[in-house]
């Protein structure tokens, strides 16, 4: 087994004292980010990215991905103890997690949440280990039409699988593409949409958008809701952990379903948030305790947490193998790789073996370390949440401003962060999804280049997207997903009609 050998080599890369230290720092920072409102996986990694520019890429990506794992774990703490989802993907965890905390079973709920997060992530990493090299090898044969097709699939699946209204998803996505087009066109050297402004020459950096949309936007929303953190105590002792672990195996079916949903939603970029809701809904429908969901069922914690972590982890598979991130955080990590001069995509697996397998090995280690760390440090994080918002809010804004500035050492970016913050607030309130905007901003140039190259190959005929079975089936699948909301609406309409009509 070549992959196992590669993985072992990866462990050798990841298991140096220095990298283990970065892993620890990453997890701790990540949990902190996950616990604090206004700082999430995506913008947390975005803010810390400039600090890693001077580090060796392998250590840097290990630390950044550990921040991501930490943030995934951290979201569950606030959901269960405070009924406040620290991250969008832990909203579904509040449904049963908080009632459990109210009944005095907070420790049980948190153990279940952390353990199922770990299980979900572990299976996703195993999948990445064995699937990623295959996908990468396969993708080596991709030409521009195939790459554009995969990107089309990425964006269409947002429309088809998102929880938000499809038109709003499209609007948000196109806004991302439009912003990505601002600045110098690399192919023709022409300036687009700069309107004579020198500040716009460089275009919009998606890191700024991420910090504004998810950071400042979230703070504004939190101010509106006027949050006062009144939570349950968060003590965990080993006895309860062991008791809960004994209980967990009986819910294996729920976990397996959650893992499948999570991996699927992570690879096709539905993302962790819809995965957690889908998994919760599915568990509720199938479980024999379904009617008691929402009153503090442990299954109601296992299902969304497993799926969210599986999705969050498997989102890195398309990022590494195709250069197409499956979630905003994966997009930020991709941005980091580009800054370090590593071009994600199939060639990465051939040219930078050490880096890729070091990263994959660190996913195993990071999740084990993450589980142990969160289980032992929960009370501290709960204490952090008791710091009043009047201190936390301005400090987070200061951190966001520094993050925005350090991306390019540019004040204009800080102004733009505020603009994006206001957009984020408005969009969230009107149910426009933010993830498509960010992904379109990241992938905009790549998608455009792939499209233009395809058009060059075919001399402007769209037929090239059906020129071979591979590209044809991807494009067709993408278009089906695009119109899926219409199809499903039609199916419901047909079912709603009296059966006599349906027979005739």
């Amino acid at each position, binding site marked *: 087994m070549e992959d196992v050998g590669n993985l072992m080599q990866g462990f050798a890369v990841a298991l140096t004292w220095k990298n283990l230290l970065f892993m620890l720092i990453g997890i701790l920072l990540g949990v902190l980010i996950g616990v604090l409102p206004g700082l999430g996986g995506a913008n947390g990694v975005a803010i810390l990215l400039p*600090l890693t520019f001077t580090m060796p890429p392998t250590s840097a990506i290990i630390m950044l991905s550990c921040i991501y794992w930490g943030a995934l774990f951290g979201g569950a703490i606030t959901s269960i103890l405070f009924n406040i989802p620290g991250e969008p993907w832990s909203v579904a965890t509040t449904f049963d997690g908080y009632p459990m905390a109210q009944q005095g079973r907070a420790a049980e709920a948190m153990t279940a949440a952390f353990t199922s997060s770990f299980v979900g992530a572990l299976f996703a990493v195993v999948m990445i280990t064995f699937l990623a090299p295959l996908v990468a090898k396969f993708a080596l044969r991709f030409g521009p039409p195939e790459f554009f097709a995969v990107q089309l699939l990425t964006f269409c699946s947002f429309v088809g699988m998102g929880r938000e209204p499809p038109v709003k998803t499209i609007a948000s996505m196109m*806004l991302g593409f439009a912003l990505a*087009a601002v600045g110098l066109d690399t192919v023709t050297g022409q300036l*687009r949409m700069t309107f004579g402004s020198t500040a716009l020459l460089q275009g919009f950096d998606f890191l700024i958008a991420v910090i504004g949309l998810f950071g400042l936007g979230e703070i504004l929303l939190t101010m509106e809701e006027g949050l006062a953190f009144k939570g349950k105590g968060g003590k965990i002792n080993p006895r309860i952990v062991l008791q809960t672990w004994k209980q967990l195996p009986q819910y294996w079916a729920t976990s397996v379903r959650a893992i499948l949903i999570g991996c699927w939603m992570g690879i096709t970029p539905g993302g962790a948030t819809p995965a957690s809701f889908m998994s919760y809904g599915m568990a509720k429908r199938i479980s024999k305790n379904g009617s008691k969901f929402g009153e503090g069922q442990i299954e109601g914690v296992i299902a969304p947490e497993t799926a969210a972590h599986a999705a969050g982890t498997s989102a890195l598979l398309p990022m590494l193998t195709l250069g197409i991130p499956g979630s905003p955080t994966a997009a930020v990590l991709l941005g980091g790789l580009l800054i370090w001069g590593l071009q994600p995509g199939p060639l990465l697996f051939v040219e930078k073996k050490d880096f890729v397998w070091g990263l994959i090995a660190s996913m195993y280690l990071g999740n084990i370390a993450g589980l142990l760390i969160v289980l032992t440090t929960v009370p501290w994080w709960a204490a952090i949440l008791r710091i*009043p918002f*009047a201190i936390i809010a301005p400090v987070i*804004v200061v951190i966001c401003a520094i993050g925005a500035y350090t991306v390019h050492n540019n004040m204009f970016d800080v102004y733009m962060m505020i603009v994006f*913050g206001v957009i984020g607030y408005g969009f969230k309130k009107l149910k426009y999804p933010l993830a498509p905007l960010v992904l379109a901003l990241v992938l905009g140039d790549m998608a455009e280049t792939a499209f233009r190259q395809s058009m060059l190959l075919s001399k402007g005929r769209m037929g090239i997207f059906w020129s071979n079975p591979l590209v044809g089936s991807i494009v067709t699948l993408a278009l089906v997903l695009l119109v899926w909301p219409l199809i499903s609406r039609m199916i419901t309409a047909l079912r709603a009609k009296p059966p006599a009509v349906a027979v005739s």
Partner: protein
Amino acid sequence: MATSGGNARGDIATRWAELVVAALIAGGGLVVVIDSVRVGITWADDGPRAGYFPFFIGCLLMIAGGVIAVETLLKWKKLAGVTFVTTERLKPVLLMLLPTIGYVILIAWLGIYVASLVYVGAFMRWQGKYSWVKTFAVAVGLPIVLFAIFELWFLVPLPKGPVERLLGF
């Protein structure tokens, strides 16, 4: 602003917010289309011109904005009582947003350390009603910690102003 329906005076109705955002999206689409036409949406000898791809994007933006506007108008009556944000809840949002805008302007003028001190201090004092001692401790402590992390540890320079110059940095 509509005051009919269930909205109290001065509250922003969701349907108006929807319309304004839809108009902004469509307007943005129009800007993209106009600029794409300017740089050329047709083919040159060496392939598609710079506006070829963005032109489609602009069109889709205009269509999406239009559809959202029409959908809102179709549901106009049904949305009558839905509030985007009440005046009462808008206040804390503005109390966050406006000082933040001021803060960013201050950064350009005084550098990030002094601006952060003023911003965090003012926020804690006026909104959190903390004692001067506590406010001072956090507001002065934060820039010092930031300075240590960014300038000394990671060697990332942050914007500095007259005060830092006086201190010799």
